[in-house]
């Protein structure tokens, strides 16, 4: 099975962000970057499929400047066979434009399965996979937590609120991955060394003109200090009252 996994380079979310002087981007000074969480699950799921079938190829694709090569190499150090960088400097926020460039690359790739994370953890648009499917005329199943195959049929599970859904579709298909599917492995040391020797192809991204622009970024207002309303069980009635009447969350 030939699998493509589209991965995005995102900043580590555990830090305090600053907005760049442009007002439309995050200040990248001192940030640490990694594969977006859900995309990491997708890479792991793809590798497990390949290992189970003991055949096939896993290709990772990322759109961005040369910095994404490090992200691609990380996926190869986990076990992906080769990587493609769709070179595009600057920030890109129009999911349709990004999906178009990815679709152009994926179209003639002969992929049986194209995988995405359910959404990227920085911008959280969650639409790129679905747009790619539409552009390629392929079925798309979003946010799957389980994936199995019966010949050329993919059998998937989606988690719903208090229930789950079982879905089937014929390959080739596009799927987006939810976190339940597989915990990403640590790259082994041999994997890290091997990644240096795996092919990483860089080509210009065929990006159509963006129809969406990012006008301004703003940090949320500082949260007011918390309030301690009492201790132990005696405080519970007052807490419930405030959650109902003041915070209006109950």
């Amino acid at each position: 099975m030939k699998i493509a996994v589209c991965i995005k380079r995102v900043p580590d979310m555990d830090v305090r962000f600053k907005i760049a002087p442009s007002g439309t981007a995050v200040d990248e000074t001192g940030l640490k970057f990694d594969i977006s969480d859900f995309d990491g699950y997708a890479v792991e799921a793809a590798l497990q499929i390949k290992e189970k079938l003991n055949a096939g190829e896993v290709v990772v694709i990322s759109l961005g400047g040369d910095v994404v090569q490090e992200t691609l190499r990380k996926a190869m150090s986990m076990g992906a066979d080769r990587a493609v960088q769709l070179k595009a400097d600057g920030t890109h926020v129009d999911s349709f434009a990004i999906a178009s460039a990815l679709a152009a690359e994926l179209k003639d790739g002969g992929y049986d399965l194209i995988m995405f994370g359910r959404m990227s953890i920085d911008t959280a648009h969650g639409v790129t996979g679905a747009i790619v499917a539409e552009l390629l005329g392929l079925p798309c199943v979003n946010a799957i937590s389980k994936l199995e195959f019966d010949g050329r049929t993919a059998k998937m599970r989606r988690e719903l609120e208090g229930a789950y859904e079982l879905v089937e579709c014929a390959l080739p298909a596009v799927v987006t991955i939810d976190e339940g599917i597989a915990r990403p492995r640590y790259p082994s040391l041999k994997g890290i060394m091997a990644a240096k020797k795996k092919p990483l192809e860089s080509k210009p991204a065929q990006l159509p003109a963006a129809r969406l622009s990012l006008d301004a970024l703003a940090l949320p207002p500082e949260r007011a200090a918390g309030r301690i309303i009492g201790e132990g069980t005696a405080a519970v009635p007052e807490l419930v009252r405030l959650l109902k009447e003041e915070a209006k969350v109950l």
Partner: protein
Amino acid sequence: MATELSTPTYLPSPQLTPREGDLFNLDAALTEEERAVRDSVRAFVDEKVLPLIGQCYVEGRFPKELIAEMGANGYFGANLPEEYGCAGLNNVMYGLIMQELERGDSGIRSFASVQGALVMYPIYAFGSEEQKRHYLPKMATGEVIGCFGLTEPDYGSNPAGMITRARQQADGTWILNGAKMWITNGSTAQVAVVWAKTEDGDESGKSIRGFLVPTNAKGFKAKDQKGKLSLRASDTSELVFDNVHLPADAILPKSGGLKSPLMCLTQARYGISWGALGAAMACYEEALSYSKERVMFGRPIGGFQIQQVRLADMLTEIVKGQLVSLHLGRMKDIGTFTPQQVSFAKRNNVNIATDIAREARRLLGGSGILAEYASMRHMANLESVYTYEGTHDIHSLILGQAVTGLNAFGG
């Protein structure tokens, strides 16, 4: 004629700006692969070691359940060549692995040091091709575990005086007698690298040779050393050899004299210089985060000058130590490092780590004495690290001799 000013750009990653937590931007001094190795081991330690190590320490057991995964990840003998099943990493990567493992616990790092630098290395450096092919791939995966027996009950800092004796028989086989003490992994190992004298009346240690001794050999006994208050998540044993009969090919053919075990110690001490920094980093980070959360007299204790001095001192010493180990690693990679430089790094880095661990524990107030926090565990562990692989004093004497040319070991 104008002289040309040359500005060497020695930073492998000049594009990196200092990350939060990396004030001195040491990441810029590492390559992408070196950072990838460190981050991978860091993730392993965060997810697999930290959740269980406090309890292991209290119970006084080494977490054997981690061995297979550490092996699969390539942590054992990682700087030895790929043709023997090892990861073939450079020495800076190897050091970073030790740093991260000891950020978990000195016992975990000790296990990897013994396996890699004290057992796999001598087999690699002094072994026959057959011994290398037989042992190294299985030791890299952790399928076979080794220990290193040099220290004896009456000969610690002065191993040249060892009593353990291997006598060659007429048919070429060997009979081993003696005892070793303080042997890490002693009760866990399947194979022991045992150092023994092969001639009578040898006081200088020139007849010392290394032997590969299967721990299930008749006459071999390993006994756990009880009552340790340090390095509790590590197996430390006494070994006794009572007429252990070894085949002729049990000897490491290229070993010869005390120099051979000392070469192993140089490898291990290099890794320890990084490892101790890992323990110090864990303590510093714990203290830093506690100082921001713990409120006393109406403000986080990190907002008081006393605690800021503490934290600034800790950070300063860690960064200095990292620069020493990194420089040492780069020299080791090009083959120019000396044992005296390794003594410098081991001595300094372990010493500052013991101080940092103690200061972190103090900053934590009463919480600092609990196993739930890491600082006191590291503080107690580092006392072993301070003593083994050449005590702090012995390394002072090595440095003293290097600078004065005068030998002070005798008094």
